[in-house]
């Protein structure tokens, strides 16, 4: 069996410089610049913080041959609730980002780079113990049509009520009526 053209591993302190140079933003969109800024300046500190290091990892997807960083994925556990009385455990896709150089590109096997990054996050969520894959949730800017499409391809198909800011859409994985 041939190896995939990508590698996925958990980020560590030694990746700080690499993440600080990660480029994914469309400079014309504030919301896109914010994603890049968070990855460059905050993500590693948050992921390595006490209490978060085991639960909320950063996954790095790189090209196997060149070791070029293709994308970054991070997720965290949270609760959804109306008023704190009834809590729905969920996993938030904190960041899913593909580097500028890989945006819109596919691996030679035909897989979209964005699908590999998203699949890395979903695989990690699915394998967590205790389980945390019941609900996966994401907040996406309404103008970020590529990310909205990516979320929908991976099952985040239901739109929740608006976040506190109307510019953002909250998507969650599908539920069937009991």
């Amino acid at each position, binding site marked *: 069996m041939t190896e*995939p053209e990508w590698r996925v591993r958990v980020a560590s302190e030694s990746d700080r410089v690499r993440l600080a140079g990660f480029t994914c933003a469309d400079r014309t969109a504030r919301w896109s610049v914010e994603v890049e800024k968070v990855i460059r300046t905050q993500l590693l*500190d948050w992921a390595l913080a006490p209490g978060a290091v085991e639960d909320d990892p950063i996954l790095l997807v790189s090209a196997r041959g060149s070791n070029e960083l293709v994308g970054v994925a991070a997720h965290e556990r*949270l*609760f959804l609730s109306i008023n704190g009385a009834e809590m*729905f455990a969920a996993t938030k896709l904190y960041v899913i980002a593909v580097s500028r150089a890989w945006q819109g590109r596919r691996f030679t096997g035909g897989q979209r780079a964005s699908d590999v990054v998203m*699949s890395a996050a979903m695989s990690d969520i699915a394998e967590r113990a205790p389980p945390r*894959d019941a609900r996966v949730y994401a*907040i996406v800017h309404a103008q970020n049509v590529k990310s909205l499409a990516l979320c929908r391809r991976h099952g985040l198909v239901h739109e929740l009520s608006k976040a*506190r800011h109307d510019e953002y859409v909250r998507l969650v994985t599908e*539920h069937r009526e009991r």
Partner: protein
Amino acid sequence: MCARCGEETTAASFANAAARIEASAAFLRLQGFLSQSPTSAVSSLVEGAHVPEESAIALVLRTLARQTATVRLQRRFAKHAPAFLGRISSSTEGYVVVTNEGGLSIAVPRGLARAAHRERIGECLAVINSHVDARELIVRAIPGIDVGREHAEPYSPFARVDGFERINATDAAYLRGQPEPLRIQIPVTIEQ
């Protein structure tokens, strides 16, 4: 709190964050104000007594409160913040009800709220619970400072939520359903 729990790194980060705030222009203005005020005024301020909303000292306190809130919501610190922060939403003779931004409410003995100079509806109050053991709890009421909505941080999808992400009744009805299995489109092995 972190030092007591043996979390040296986080305690040091807390101390560094506090040092940065203490080196800020707002903190220097506070020091200047306190050094020129009579002891009674300083004591009153430290205990949380109200100051006129548009006074210079109120503006300085709001600036410092915003800086502190920004630090507190950072992920590395959020998990160590035992405070319940909210506004007094109702009161009786014996207690006040404090409700946070997520809609969660707790009752606080009125005497504690009074000691913190916060017992009127709409006022901000923080409550810190420290467990002594399984059956004993120390409750501390801290006067809150209203930083004002006009000064609130702009919305960010990366902001840490305090307790839970808020949804509405329609969302909750949907989430009570049976979650479908996750779709993993591409098999991925994560190297450890």
